């Protein structure tokens, strides 16, 4: 009888212990870049994790202030991007900028070329005209002549001349808006910092763009992909060490005018919001040190695919070395690359989708 009691206690202890062996998980949330930032750190003491997360949040806030697209000063700090845009609009006045900003401009120029000009952060004026350089988005009156004029002015990243730390633009219509780059860049900054601090396991989410470091307990970090029209995930997938995932959608930043949805992703060729996609998701593997990093690519690569549509998706993804992507078009039809199809776990098992060959 006593023996049985002892074994019972043992069984109970096992259950209790399995609960205790869970790694400590620290979680912090904040609002930066006009969106929600979410940091999880696993396997560190709460104290250290909180210190590290605060440092990362501070880095993000600094980047946000420096790269703000439409406020001249943020938190009493002049926006470096604002100063740069002012110089651009004044003609070819060279401006000295900080080395990391010069590096960013060169990187963006390369990425823009690779995207055949569809990723174009130089169209800040168009983005502003459509009302997406505000904290909240309300319908605007569509100013067709002005849109036409801005498209004709054709500001491109190639108009920017960078020599050492001195920069000017050959096109005074060029106005930078790094809304499709800064969050991805920030992810890479955070990962580099956390790795350097010896953190093994973390998950960082800036406004939906997510990057993973290590894993969560004995399993990879798991990420849900938002359904573009329902308040739930459409699928989940495992995000391995160093991988990043990004989605561009028409459901977070948009307004509706006369029954028509206008989203924040502007086609630089027409000057109008892209209208044939609900969402585009890319999954990016870790990159070599001398190339654009996974965070940046997760932010950037969705844009040209969102604008160009399904028929161009494979080619554009390939140009950036990306094999895993998912598209949901305006009719809610889902297309998945072959590699991505193997990684997705659909929330609704009956979901219909097309797999690319």
């Amino acid at each position: 009888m006593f023996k049985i009691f002892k074994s019972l206690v043992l069984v109970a202890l096992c259950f209790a212990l399995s609960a205790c062996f869970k790694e400590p998980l620290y979680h912090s949330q904040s609002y930066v870049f006009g969106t929600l930032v979410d940091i999880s750190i696993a396997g560190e003491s709460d104290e250290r994790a909180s210190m590290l997360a605060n440092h990362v949040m501070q880095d993000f806030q600094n980047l946000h202030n420096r790269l703000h697209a439409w406020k001249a000063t943020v938190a009493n700090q002049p926006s470096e991007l604002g100063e740069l845009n002012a110089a651009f609009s004044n003609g070819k006045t060279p401006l000295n900028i900080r080395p990391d900003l010069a590096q960013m401009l060169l990187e963006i120029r390369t990425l823009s070329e690779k995207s055949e000009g569809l990723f174009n952060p130089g169209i800040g004026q168009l983005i502003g005209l459509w009302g997406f350089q505000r904290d909240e988005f309300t319908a605007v009156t569509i100013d067709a002549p002005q849109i036409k004029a801005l498209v004709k002015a054709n500001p491109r990243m190639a108009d920017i001349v960078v020599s050492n730390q001195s920069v000017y633009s050959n096109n005074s219509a060029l106005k930078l808006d790094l809304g499709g780059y800064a969050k991805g860049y920030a992810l890479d900054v955070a990962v580099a910092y956390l790795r350097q601090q010896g953190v093994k396991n973390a998950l960082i989410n800036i406004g939906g763009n997510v990057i993973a470091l290590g894993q969560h307990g004995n399993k990879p970090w798991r990420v849900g992909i938002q359904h573009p029209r329902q308040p739930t995930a459409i699928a989940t997938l495992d995000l391995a060490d160093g991988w990043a995932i990004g989605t561009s959608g028409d459901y977070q930043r948009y307004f509706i005018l006369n029954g028509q949805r206008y989203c924040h992703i502007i086609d630089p060729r027409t000057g109008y919001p892209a209208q044939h996609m609900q969402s585009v998701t890319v999954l990016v593997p870790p990159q070599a040190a001398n190339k654009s990093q996974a965070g940046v690519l997760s932010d950037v690569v969705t844009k040209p695919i969102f604008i160009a549509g399904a028929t161009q998706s494979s080619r554009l993804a390939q140009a950036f070395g990306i094999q895993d992507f998912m598209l949901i078009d305006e009719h809610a039809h889902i297309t998945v690359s072959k590699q991505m199809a193997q990684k997705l776990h659909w929330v609704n098992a009956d979901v219909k989708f097309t797999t690319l060959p």
Partner: protein
Amino acid sequence: MRMLNLQRYLKRLQCKRISAYFLPGDVMLLAIGVLGVFYLFQLLWSTEHATKVQIRLADKIYATYSLKLQREVHVPGKLGDTVINIANGKARFAQSPCQGQYCVHQAWLSLAGQAAICLPNQVSLELLGENKPYDSLNY
């Protein structure tokens, strides 16, 4: 020892009373079995329905409530009060002082892992369940 027990067991089996069919050890084994099944049910059969809602205001957890009790929560955000309804295992943004009202349009949430955010007022809802279906949401 074991042989002795078995002999005793067989002897008692010859009696006709039902209680005699079970020794204390049998009862214990049965209990462990039932508990085990219950535990595994909890572990593996966790329905996705959420049990709690976590409300965050800016970078702080504002409150965590059970979804079972009906409740109206007023969260004082940057722009004003956001009103959150909780009822029948669901939660939603009922009223918000923001322009876009995207948060209100998210309507009722009921599954673990579902979340809604009001960026302008910096209020977020996240439904919590037994198991998290994912660690973070890509959107």
